C-alpha cells in the first residue's frame, strides 16, 4: 500500500512543557495546527504512524551512535523526560513488531539500519504524538536519524534513507502515515534558546514545498550551525520525508515563530495524490 500521508511538524518540548508560559494568542494556534494535522492524518485511515525524529540522547549515545535506527517492538514507553517538565503523562504507545520487521528487512537492501526492540520516547516523538494520537491507540514505528552527535548523518544519506522508507512502505499492505519531526532553525537548550531565524526557515520551507532535491541538499553543517543553530541539523528528518514523498509538492499549513517554545512552530505536508505511487 503506498504511503498514505507524508508531513512534518515541530517537536520542541516547550510546545507542551512551557505552554503555560506562552500567551494564549501564541499557544492556541500552534495547538490548533496540530489538531488539524491529527484530523488530516486520521482521514487517511492509517494502520500505523512512522515518526522520523531527531532523538536527543534518550536511547542513543556516543558509545554506539547509529546513523539510522528503527524501533521493532510491540510497545514503547515514554516520556523519558520528567512528565511534569514535559507536561505529558507517562504513556505506553502501541508498536507493531511484525510490521517493523518487514519494513526494516526491505530497507536493509539499500541502507544500513540499526533496529531497536526497546525504545523510550523522548520529546522528539512524544510531543507530536501527544497531539496526533492523544489516546495512544495508533501503532507507532519510531525512527531516528542522527542529528545530534557529530559526525552527523550526511544529508544525501538522509535522502537515500527517505527513499528506502518509501520503498518499504509501498511493499507492505498496511496503510502508513509518515511524519518527520524537528527543526527548523533553533538553538534549543542553549543561551540562545528562543532565537529563531525566520528568513532562513521560510527559505528552507520553500525548498521543502517545491521538493527540490538539489536545493534541499545544498546545505553544509557549518553554515547550518551558524545560521540555524544545532537545531537546524534536524532538517535531516524533513529531507527524508521529502525523499519519501517522491516528487510530490507540499503545503505549509502553519508556521509561526514562538520564542518561548524556542522554535518556529511548523506543520506542513505533501500532496501525495498528485503523483503516481
Amino acid at each position: 500500500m503506498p504511503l498514505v500521508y507524508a508531513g512534518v511538524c515541530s517537536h520542541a518540548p516547550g510546545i507542551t512543557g512551557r505552554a503555560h508560559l506562552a500567551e494564549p494568542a501564541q499557544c492556541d494556534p500552534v495547538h490548533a495546527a496540530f489538531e488539524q494535522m491529527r484530523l488530516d492524518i486520521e482521514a487517511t485511515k492509517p494502520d500505523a504512524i512512522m515518526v522520523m525524529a531527531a532523538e536527543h540522547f534518550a536511547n542513543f549515545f556516543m558509545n554506539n551512535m547509529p546513523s539510522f535506527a528503527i524501533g521493532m517492538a510491540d510497545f514503547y514507553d515514554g516520556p523519558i523526560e520528567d512528565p511534569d517538565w514535559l507536561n505529558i503523562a507517562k504513556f505506553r504507545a502501541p508498536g507493531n513488531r511484525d510490521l517493523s520487521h518487514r519494513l526494516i528487512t526491505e530497507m536493509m537492501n539499500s541502507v544500513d539500519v540499526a533496529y531497536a526492540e526497546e525504545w523510550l520516547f523522548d520529546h522528539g516523538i512524544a510531543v507530536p504524538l501527544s497531539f496526533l494520537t492523544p489516546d495512544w491507540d495508533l501503532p507507532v514505528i519510531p525512527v531516528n536519524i542522527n542529528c545530534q552527535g557529530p559526525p552527523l548523518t550526511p544529508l544525501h544519506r538522509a535522502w537515500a534513507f527517505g527513499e528506502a522508507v518509501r520503498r518499504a512502505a509501498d511493499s507492505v499492505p498496511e496503510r502508513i502515515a509518515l511524519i518527520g519531526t524537528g527543526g527548523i532553525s533553533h538553538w534549543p537548550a542553549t543561551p540562545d534558546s528562543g532565537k529563531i531565524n525566520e528568513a532562513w526557515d521560510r527559505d528552507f520551507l520553500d525548498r521543502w514545498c517545491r521538493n527540490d532535491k538539489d536545493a534541499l541538499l545544498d546545505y553544509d553543517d557549518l553554515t547550518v550551525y551558524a545560521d540555524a543553530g544545532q537545531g537546524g541539523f534536524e532538517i535531516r528528518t524533513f529531507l527524508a520525508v521529502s525523499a519519501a514523498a517522491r516528487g510530490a509538492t507540499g503545503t505549509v499549513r502553519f508556521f509561526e515563530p514562538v520564542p518561548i517554545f524556542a522554535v518556529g512552530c511548523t506543520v506542513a505536508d505533501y500532496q501525495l495524490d498528485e503523483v503516481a505511487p
Partner: protein
Amino acid sequence: MSLYYVQKFLFEINRSPGLQEQYRTDRRAAVAPYELTDEERAALIEPDIGKLFVLGVNGQILMHFAAFHQIEWADYLQQMRDGVEAYGPVREGVYAITGYEGTDAHTARIRKGAD
C-alpha cells in the same frame, strides 16, 4: 578534557533513577566511576551549569540535569550565559564548531544576513 565521560554521566543519570538516588545521597561517589578531570568532577558535584556548558555539554543532556536540580528554565538559560561570561567560550563539542560569539553578536550577524 573528557567531555565524553561528563556527558556519559549526565546521559546515565538522566535515565537512571538508581543513579539519581545515589547522586542525592553521595554526589562524589556517584561520579567516581567516570574518567573525569578535577574541574569536570567539581562541576558535576556542585553543580555548575555554566561550567558544564562551557566544557561543551550538549544542552539536550544538560537541560535535564538542570531540571533534576529544580532549576527553572529561565535560570537555566541565565546560568549558561553566566558561565560563558565567567569561564570564556565553549571549549569543545558541537557548540565549539564555529566558536560561540555570544548571543547578541550572533543575533546581530544573523539579522544582517537576513537583510
